[in-house]
């Protein structure tokens, strides 16, 4: 038996390679029983298409080819908002109160509308990039809790995502990194690594971690599902926090073709998490899905949308109170739009993330407002916990 042909082709250039929509998952073990999953949507999700404000009188004017609402088959959420049809498989989760949304939110980032800076600020969690934060907010969360240690299995790893970057220990893994060696090669690899105890320990970890990539029928699953399944597997064990990102949201043209695929992947990810965080674990889990900024309220000339400001935050999990679209709705009339073009953010998205962390991990307000999200105003409790 040798290195499998698929693996070999995958590596050096002959196959359709694995999903480009995937980045490594980062994990951190924590001293709690609750679980937090943070998913970053890179490229700026169009919140107005994902959660469609069909009840707003200005809506039909703004979107010509991207019309939404129950009339074109979008499942209705609450009589004002409808869900993009590509996320219809999530409707049972919505009905069960396991899925919710917050609309018209954004980070403090304004005006330049650069993905690069927008994502940096979303992950830094600060008021502005000029503050020069080198660590991400999820890592700073870990720094504030005594007794946090990397899951021993990942002790010498560190986060690849800016979000989890920092001094608190964090381990990395990608579902694509599975080690697939023949038994003989593996035995010999063990042997040569014995010259270096640390590397030997890392090799053994890698062997343990490999394996979440096939479904019950033994078929290899798509990358984003493997990522979610692997996150669930670790969260069922020692890990308490997992973060990863999904790409493919920058829909400048033909959004009606590009966005459904990305939304389906997101729905797959949420369903996989729910399915594989079996039993009581799902009820201890909060999932937060954020993006760097929203997109223009008005459709552009190429059946897409351009970089905007306010957008939507998606949340899920048995620990959170879903079944609601939260946030103060600013309206879509010309005078109500931010700079006449974007959904006006009515609240800092960090405030919602902070309230969820407060609920899951019992963090106090001062820690959240000064350490985790410096400068955030927590404001009123949006009542997102069950």
């Amino acid at each position, binding site marked *: 038996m040798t290195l499998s042909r698929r693996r070999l082709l995958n*590596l050096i250039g002959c196959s359709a390679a694995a999903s480009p929509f995937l980045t490594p998952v980062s994990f951190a073990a924590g001293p709690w029983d609750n679980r937090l999953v943070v998913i970053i949507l890179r490229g700026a999700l169009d919140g107005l298409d994902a959660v469609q404000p069909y009840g707003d009188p200005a809506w039909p004017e703004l979107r010509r080819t991207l019309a939404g609402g129950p009339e074109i088959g979008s499942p209705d959420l609450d009589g004002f908002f409808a869900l993009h049809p590509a996320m219809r498989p999530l409707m049972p989760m919505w009905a069960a109160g396991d899925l919710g949304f917050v609309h018209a939110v954004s980070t403090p980032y304004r005006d330049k509308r650069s993905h690069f800076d927008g994502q940096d600020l979303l992950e830094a969690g600060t008021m502005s990039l000029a503050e020069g934060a*080198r660590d991400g907010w999820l890592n700073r969360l870990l720094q504030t809790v005594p007794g946090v240690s990397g899951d021993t299995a990942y002790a010498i*790893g*560190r986060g690849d995502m800016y979000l989890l970057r920092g001094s608190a220990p964090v381990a990395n893994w990608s579902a694509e990194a599975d080690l697939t060696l*023949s038994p*003989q090669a593996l035995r010999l690899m063990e042997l040569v690594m014995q010259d270096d105890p*640390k*590397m030997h320990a*890392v090799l053994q*970890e890698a062997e343990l971690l490999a394996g979440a990539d096939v479904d019950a029928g033994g078929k290899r699953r798509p990358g984003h599902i493997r990522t979610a399944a692997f996150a669930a597997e670790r969260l069922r064990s020692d890990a308490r926090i997992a973060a990863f990102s999904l790409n493919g949201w920058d829909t400048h043209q033909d959004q009606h073709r590009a966005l459904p695929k990305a939304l389906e992947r997101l729905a797959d990810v949420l369903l996989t998490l729910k399915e594989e965080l079996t039993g009581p674990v799902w009820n201890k889990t909060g999932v937060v899905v954020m993006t760097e900024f929203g997109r223009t309220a008005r459709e552009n000339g190429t059946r897409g949308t351009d970089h905007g400001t306010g957008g939507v935050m998606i949340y899920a999990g048995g620990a959170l109170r879903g079944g609601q679209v939260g946030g103060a709705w600013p309206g879509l009339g010309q005078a109500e739009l931010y700079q006449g073009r974007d959904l006006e953010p009515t609240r800092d998205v960090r405030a919602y993330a902070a309230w969820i962390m407060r609920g899951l991990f019992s963090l106090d307000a001062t820690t959240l407002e000064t350490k985790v999200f410096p400068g955030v105003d927590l404001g009123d409790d949006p009542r997102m916990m069950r």
Partner: protein
Amino acid sequence: MLSGLHGPDEIAERFPIQPFDDFRARMVEMQALYKKRSKVRGTPEGEALRKQQNLVKKAARQDMLGWLGQTLLRRAHTKTALRERLVYFWADHFTAYGKAGVIKRATSPYIEEAIRPHLTGRFSDLLFACVTHPVMLHFLDQHKSIGPNSVAAARRGKSRGLNENLAREVLELHTLGVDGPYNQTDVRELAELFAGMSFQPNRGFKFRKDYSEPGAETVLGTTYDGKPTMAPVRAALDDLAAHPATAQHIARKLAVHFVSDDPDPALVTHLATRFRETDGDLAQVYQALLEHDAAWQPGLGNAKLPVDFVASTLRALNVAPERIQPLTEKEMRQGFLRPMAMMGQIWQLPIGPDGWPEEDGHWLTPQGLSARITWAMAAPEQLVPSLPDPREFVRTALGSYASEAVQFAAGAAESKSEAIGLVLSCPAFQKR
């Protein structure tokens, strides 16, 4: 070991990389196309121009991957390996890359122009070349920074202002170090001194007098006149380069990179002293590194970074340029870029301006090691016409570091490719 550094840069001639000064033509072209297109957007003519823009972008993208190949080939075939390692070290110290547009592909051209010619000169010259380089000005937003009381600010109102990004990183990363003796006021004053440093695609660096902040600025207690020229900027950078904290910071970084994550303090002091005594003569500082006992401790040193591992594999296998240079963009991505990303290093795109971490623990993670092993098992047979005899290869690749275990494994593996993969994965090859 150092003599090669003073000789002609033969390997750069053999495997050329376009310097930024030539790369700029692409930016000029993009700018011209953009301008033309803005008038005819949505028309067939506009569509044709968009396609032309895409061609320029595509060519730059392909060339960028070609330069990755050239970079690896330089490391594989050089007789002066130290030069390539120093280029890497300083390119990381002065991390800069384009954030949007065709300049995204200009990192190798930046390194070729700002770093490579200054390797053995004075640190102050290297610092000046990097800090004033268009790619750096763009990366840290300096080219848009406007003095609050400048002519431009008066003209534009409050829409734009000072950007402290570059000034902060110069103090924190490039010179004094994060624990250095500076405060927020120094950052601010240096940023005001920097206001005016900008560039234009058609001429490169340009000092914009209208962006310059009038009046003197005081950085670390020294006052620089407020003339709207580069003279006070040069003076401030020279003073920062000569600061004892800079000597200490650079000394430690060199020791960490070339010797150990936790270097002997005596080695750091030795380097810092030489740095100060020679006014930052880098060749002399490298000499100090090579002559110190702590640099020659037996045993293995730091883990190789992914790019080092990949390059040293090419070197060990003596991969021919003809094997790399014809690779397509897709092949370069799948053969090198993607595997290196899985190993943890997205080539030339570290997360922040502080470059890649040095700690072995960051790199030798389960994921990182898996990716290295997987690549080591699969890549070599694509890189050479026929794999070498593994028992022979143990000696070529590892020399006196070949342990009994590795020698045994190389002979006991089921296939040549597994045997080669085992040798490339072993601790002695993964470290240096």
